[in-house]
């Protein structure tokens, strides 16, 4: 069982003072997209006129068929891609104006996990998590307690010296989640995190994401998993053909019109 969190970890903000003030104002959403359009160089339009606001501590499911634009949206949020038109703000910071050298500090505020885990096979569980701290120049003496802390959050105590191929899929995803947590992210993006997992394991991962959300982290999860979305009754944003077709609180995987009302 994952350990329960009793205390909120203290955070140091990387934002400039002005933006910090803006983040405190309740009206400003943590993530804000205004008329975002993304056209790839080959002419494919992945997103057209997407506007979306996600307040702090929200838990949002992003649903829609493959190729609808979910992954593009996720890539825009960590600025792996730049929007062709429109604006994206994260904690008051305009991503289109973010300089390349400030990009790493944005990424440290956003934890990311993927369907394929992206673990390094030649590193142990401990090393995989510690890697994220080492390469962001976390001081080495704070490394061990921090890695132990996040591994206990995801319930992997005792597996520190195992290699990824010695773990189940669910355990590997927990390692990826632990790695995404080492910087105490304010936003957690999960792109099909249960895509490779069986239903029981998928539920465990969802429980973990709920726990992370309860700590005060905003969670945005792109998924195909209809059962989870329907049971959870959280906010659902549905994308089709690059446009938001539905945005409802406590929603299901499909539009309510399809269900008897």
């Amino acid at each position, binding site marked *: 069982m994952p350990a329960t969190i009793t205390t909120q970890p203290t955070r140091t903000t990387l934002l400039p003072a002005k933006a910090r003030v803006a983040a405190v104002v309740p009206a400003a959403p943590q993530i804000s997209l205004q008329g975002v359009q993304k056209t790839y160089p080959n002419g494919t339009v992945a997103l057209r006129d997407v506007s979306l606001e996600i307040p702090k501590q929200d838990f949002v499911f992003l649903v829609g068929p493959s190729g609808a634009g979910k992954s593009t949206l996720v890539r825009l949020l*960590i600025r*792996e891609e730049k929007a062709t038109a429109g604006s994206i703000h994260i904690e008051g910071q305009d991503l289109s104006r973010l300089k*390349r*050298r400030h990009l*790493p*500090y*944005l*990424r*440290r505020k956003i934890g*990311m996990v993927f369907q394929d885990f*992206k673990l*390094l096979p030649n590193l142990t569980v401990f090393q995989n998590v510690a*890697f*994220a701290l*080492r*390469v*962001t*120049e*976390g*001081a*080495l*003496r704070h490394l061990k307690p921090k890695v132990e802390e996040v591994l206990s959050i995801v319930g992997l105590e005792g597996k520190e010296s195992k290699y990824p191929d010695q773990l189940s899929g669910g355990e590997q995803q927990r390692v990826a989640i632990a*790695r*995404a947590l*080492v*910087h105490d992210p304010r936003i957690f993006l999960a792109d099909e995190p249960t895509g490779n997992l069986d239903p029981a394991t998928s539920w465990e991962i969802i429980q973990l994401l709920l726990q992370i959300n309860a700590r005060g982290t905003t969670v945005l999860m792109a998924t195909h998993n209809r059962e989870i979305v329907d049971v959870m009754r959280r906010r659902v944003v549905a994308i089709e053909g690059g446009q938001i077709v539905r945005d409802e609180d406590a929603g299901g995987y499909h539009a309510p019109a399809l269900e008897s009302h």
Partner: protein
Amino acid sequence: MHRLWNRIDFAFSSAWQNFWRNAAVSIASVLIVWVVLLALGSLLLVLHSLDQIVALEKTKASAISVYLADTTPLSSAMEFKLHLESDPRVSSVEYVSKDQAMARFRQLPALDPSVIDTLGTNPLPASLDVTVKDIRDLGAIDQEVRTSPLVDKSPATNYEPNVIDKIILLARVAGIAGLVLIIGLTGLSVFIIMLTIRTAIYLRRKEIEVMKLVGATDWFVRWPFIVEGLIVGLVGAVVAVLIVGFGYRPAVVNLQSVLIFVPLAFDPYYLRVVLAAMLGFGLLLGSVGSYLGIRRFLKQ
């Protein structure tokens, strides 16, 4: 402090791993760097020796030795000396006896005196060493003294009009050929180091992806590859520096024993300059190669 140490430790340990992970490519690039630097060091030392020879020949250029036949009596030789001294083109004339010639000969470096002793008789002729005021008159004086019956016929003088020109030409040809060779090898080595770095980047593509994902800075991602390039340059340079450093003196000594009359000298100061230049050039090759390897591939 911890952060700096972490950065250095990460860069060096990753670079060292990279180096051995694609050992074949890394060693190939070390070898090519080694060849370039060996060529560079050798060329600089050869050109320096040629410079030394030219400089020495130039000081000798305003004088010729007129060899006297062994049958020439001393009085005739002295008369001939006076005759030459009265020539307005001549600034001085010195008589060198057979014994003095032998004494000079014995002083040549790298010559085993016991070999000379086995000769028994002294084969060297006495000579009149004529110094002229203007180097251009040397040819005319050479022609005149050859007609004198007092003068030895084989050879009459040590006059060699083209020797300096020949050495300067040789130095120029060697310099240009060496430069072309080194430029070609430099291009090749930078190219191979670039391929080495690209191979290393390819082998680490998953790590690089994760590094960028979790917020590593561009420079944190780049440093290991720059360090790897520097390691390649440094290892190639150190091997070349050791070979040239320890090989220069034996090479000079051996050449001196073959080319007895060529004034080669071991120049420890110049050697140090050359070794430092080799080391610097090796590191330059490594950093340029890795810069080119990184440039295109680590952009987003």
